[in-house]
């Protein structure tokens, strides 16, 4: 199948879900607003733990804020506050009307409002981490909300998860395979997981990590720094 273009040639379009291509759209964001990074992935994969790690590591370098999309509670926000990685007034919790994927993808109004409230309270904020509610493998962030997105899966969900694919695994700007410290106990084959992940994602990066072993998430933090250096492109 081919997509028509108005500049005189065609690009091949592949509908095979196992073939990964980088998102073809320019991220929409403005130079003078904070970079917005989405953290998505299934329930319990370690999104909040990663958010906390990033706050710990990057908090000293840059002003940041967090938006949480918990489904039923303020657990995520409470955890971050208790962990002491961020002041309570730098965290905004969004109510998602029982549809967490809608709130990050189809109708991002509540999340944009939350980001705006953070910016009003802290005009100097340069990075906003948006944690989605735990959801399924198809839940990705709209480009209108996230300039870049990280999809977090864990080894405990089984080593089949990367090859199951879905837009989260195949198109996220970064795939994190978390809790590798548990791989042996749950019988997950890391080699299979990594090679499946790379096969599904092509050139897109994959980081395998354990927040138990490396609680400051150095590799993911380095990736975020690169994104910050690239800046938020003008809208």
């Amino acid at each position, binding site marked *: 199948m081919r997509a028509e273009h108005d500049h005189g040639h065609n690009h091949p379009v592949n509908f095979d879900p196992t073939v990964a291509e980088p998102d073809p759209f320019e991220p929409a964001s403005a130079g003078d607003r904070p970079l917005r990074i989405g953290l998505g992935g299934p329930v319990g994969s370690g999104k909040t733990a990663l958010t906390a790690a990033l706050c710990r590591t990057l908090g000293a370098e840059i002003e940041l804020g967090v938006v949480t999309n918990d*489904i*039923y*509670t*303020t657990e995520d926000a409470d955890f971050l506050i208790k962990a002491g990685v961020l002041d309570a007034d730098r965290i905004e919790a*969004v*109510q*998602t*009307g*029982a*549809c967490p994927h*809608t*709130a990050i993808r*189809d*109708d*991002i*109004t*509540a999340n*944009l*409002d939350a980001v705006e409230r953070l910016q009003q309270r802290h005009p100097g904020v340069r990075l906003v981490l948006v944690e989605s509610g735990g959801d399924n493998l198809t839940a990705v962030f709209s480009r209108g909300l996230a300039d870049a997105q990280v999809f977090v899966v864990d080894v405990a969900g089984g080593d089949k998860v990367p090859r199951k694919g879905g837009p989260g695994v195949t198109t996220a700007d970064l795939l994190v395979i978390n809790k590798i410290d548990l791989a042996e106990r749950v019988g997950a084959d890391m080699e299979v997981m990594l090679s499946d992940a790379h096969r599904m994602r092509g050139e897109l990066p994959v980081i395998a990590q354990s927040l138990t072993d490396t609680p400051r998430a150095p590799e993911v933090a380095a990736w975020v720094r690169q994104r910050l250096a690239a800046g938020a492109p003008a809208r």
Partner: protein
Amino acid sequence: MTTSGRLAMLALADARFPGGGHVHSGGLEEATHRGVVTRPEELREFLFGRLHGTGELAAVFAAAATHSAAGGAGRQYWLRFDAELDARTPSPAQRDASRAQGRGTARAGRVAWPSSALDELLAATARPHHATVLGVLLGGSGNGTPRDAAAVAAYLALSGSASAAVRLLGLDPFAANAAVTELGPELDRVAERAADTVGDDPADLPAPSAPALDLLAEAHQRHHREEVRLFAS
């Protein structure tokens, strides 16, 4: 009605319109927690109340806003209009829910139907009420009539709660949908009455109310602080 008017009306009423409506239950979540709504029959009753309380008020102000936007109303008018709608919305929680949806609808609507009428409204208030924005979008480049705006506003007062009922109670979606559509003739009358009032001074517009919905909205907010609610209203 022009073709663009019909499309704007349909798009604004569509649950897929990205204006933030999906996180509002219009008091339905609180009603389910109290056991007031558990079955389709009770949903029907609840929706009847929504239509004649919140829905009719929204219809009146949406129709008036369409008329005034088409007539080139300015900042002073919109400030007065805003204050009059505030005065008819006694629950602070409902005022906030309405303004949140107004802002979201304006954000999405500005891209779809930009107009000087919308700019004029947003210059007067950055967070206008939902009904006002619906009316101004249709009265601006949306090319709709006051009656269209009234119908959309009244319909949205129903559809949001019905969808919340499906999500919260696992109600049969066919029954929930029928509970909305059964109110069709009733909704037509509400929209017609609303369209009849356009041109009146904002202070003289009708003030329908539903105290039970005001109380549910307040209770919803109070409970959210204690045990967390899924919806923003």
